[in-house]
């Protein structure tokens, strides 16, 4: 793990450390789930805190996975595994993955997807991305999240809408824009958007490339995220 000069490669150390953290968080989450499954709503006064803990844990884990994935893509160690997939499969996986947590906060999640909608994409990457978008929407939604898929100008689209207050202007993103600027003041690290842009761009067909848009045309003016896959 060193270059010719014998100096350790910081990138590798960082990646390994992130990896280790990810595994630790995984253990934490599994332990939390275990405890949670043992306490019923009426017998456990700290249930709300538990759900908060689980949410933060999931967020942490999903951020670490994003960092690792980006690291691999940057080192060109990750080749997207592009296969034909059902949009409904991915959305269902994301829905199941988040449903429990959303229910705790009283948020309903609905899915609207035609069963025969298919597209070419890396299943792991795209489900990771959509799941993290849902995870983000959890924070802002009042009571509803709506996920779905469709087709637009030959692109397969996957969207997540919520009924919150919408994105701040700095996070609004349209096709053709570069990666949104990182602003520490806004509290956003930019990781999520950078991840979305990178994953989208890995999907290419002929001379078209994947991209995403965000807008405030979700449920009742809430946030909307749409991924376009060629």
């Amino acid at each position: 793990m060193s270059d010719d000069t014998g100096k350790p490669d910081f990138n590798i150390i960082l990646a390994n450390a992130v990896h280790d953290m990810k595994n630790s968080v995984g253990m934490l989450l599994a332990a939390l789930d275990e405890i949670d499954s043992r306490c019923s709503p009426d017998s456990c006064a700290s249930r709300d805190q538990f759900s908060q803990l689980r949410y933060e844990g999931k967020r942490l884990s999903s951020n670490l996975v994003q960092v690792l994935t980006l690291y691999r893509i940057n080192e060109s160690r990750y080749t997207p595994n592009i296969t034909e997939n059902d949009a409904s499969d991915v959305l269902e996986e994301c829905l199941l993955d988040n449903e429990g947590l959303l229910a705790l906060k009283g948020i309903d999640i609905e899915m609207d997807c035609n069963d025969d909608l298919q597209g070419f994409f890396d299943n792991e990457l795209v489900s990771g991305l959509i799941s993290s978008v849902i995870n983000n929407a959890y924070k802002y939604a009042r009571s509803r999240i709506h996920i779905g898929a469709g087709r637009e100008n030959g692109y397969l689209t996957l969207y997540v809408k919520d009924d919150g207050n919408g994105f701040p202007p700095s996070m609004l993103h349209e096709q053709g824009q570069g990666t949104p600027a990182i602003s520490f003041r806004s509290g956003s690290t930019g990781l999520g958007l950078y991840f979305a842009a990178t994953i989208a761009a890995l999907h290419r067909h002929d001379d078209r490339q994947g991209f995403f848009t965000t807008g405030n045309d979700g449920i009742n003016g809430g946030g909307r995220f749409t991924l376009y896959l060629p």
Partner: protein
Amino acid sequence: MAIWSLKHRTILIVDDFPEMRSTLRSMLIPWQPERIETARNGDDAIEKLQQSRYDIILCDYNLGEGKNGQQVLEEARHRSLLPFSSAFIMVSAETSAQMVMGAMETQPDGYISKPVTRVSLQVRLKKFVRKQDELRTITRAMDRKQYPAAIELIDRHLEDNNKYRFELYKLKSDLLIRAGDYERAGNLCEAVLAGRELPWARFDMGRIAFFRQDYPCAAGLFEKILAGNPGFIAAYDWLAKTRDRLGEHGEAQQVLMEGVERSPQSLPRQRALAELADRNEDIEVTEAACRKAIRIGKGSILREPADYAALARVLVQKESSAEALRVAQSINREFDHSSLARLEAATVSSSIYTTMGNKNESAGALSDALSIAAQQPGLLSADIGLSLAHSCLAHNRQEDADLIIRQLICDHEDDDAVLAKITQLYDEAGSGDAISELIETTRKEIIAINNEGVKLLKDGDVEASIELFTRAAHGMPHNPVVNLNAAQSLIRLMRDTVPGRETLAKALGFIQAAGNSEMHRERHNRLLNTCRELAASLPAENDTDAEPA
């Protein structure tokens, strides 16, 4: 959501931690599988796979001491313990990018990263179960090796069902290539590529070009894959092979080194690199690759005594005789004193002792090796043979050297690389003239035998032809033409009379012994297909997969 279950499915859980095994088990139980069994390590898993078949195998990558998950999968595939209809799912905490690459390369049917949750398990298993059900007739044909039937079933499925379309195209292309039907495979891949640039389709086009010996075209195709997908590891292997065929040995090594860097955990790749670097006289790379091959090989079904002998030989070149000797001596221990292990160990020891100036020990090891080789000529690989002949010449045992070399020529008469090494060996010993004569006469003898056998067959004396080729194949166990001719005569016998299981097995044995070099690939495939047709006409054997539909 549709209700689903694991009813009628059998599941094997492989994990070294008892807690993990019971966690997975308790996650699965609510879905009511028919049976859940567990294995606590790789050996245990292989034993279970030998005893019964499972619909789903959940195998942890890290299994502590002994085999890891990848090696379990490798061995199961290698020994045909995994039916096509089973789903082998690798569970892993992905400790490093290299490991993940390695694990993906042996191509498990799926991959679940830790921590495994009920949801992630449910989503994956649901998909597999649905696929298992929908493709059952196809996988069943594959398991019975009824490949033409499998292709037909794929076509039928595709007629009215879009699901799994590309996966089935890929499978079909692979089946067509294996059957030597390059025309249809090529058309299929072209049609796929016209719709979308899918690396596997371009990769198959490359393989087809390679088998058709159109190396420049193959090189271009593999390069194009790597330009767009530098992580498509198999393309490095094939590009290296192609460059090597084009005579660009240095470039071939370079390409393979890139592949090794991206995915080092493959024994065949390290072995190929060692072989290539050795030919390029790049001692350092050879040594590193040999060591790595041995390390990866621990616990793997794919490891061979030759891996150790190769390291010992490169250590001799480096004049590290003491370590070379230690490596040579470990061969017998590592491989349980098998004949091949004893032959490799004795052969390489003989040359190590020579460089150490220990003439008596060297002569003793040489005699041991020669007697094993005489008893079991089938064990004599080109590397062993060359090394043995070299030792014979060093001990002035010219006749023994000639005998060995004669067998090498018989086995590798159309392999220019081996013939060049033989010629070089004799040139250096000052008998360059003798060798070209030996090659010439040996070739003539082989041609004479083949002609005689073919004539017997033409004249209708099938039995005599079979006897002649069987005898000839015994004397030159790796000669492709003789072996294929032997198979052909047996096939003729089955056509003329009634096909029998035993005769069929013999024919298949000869076809396998003929190897699968491009030069004889077409004929090899043709004979293999005929055998399959004959096999299909046989009355059914005890059906091993007689399970409720």
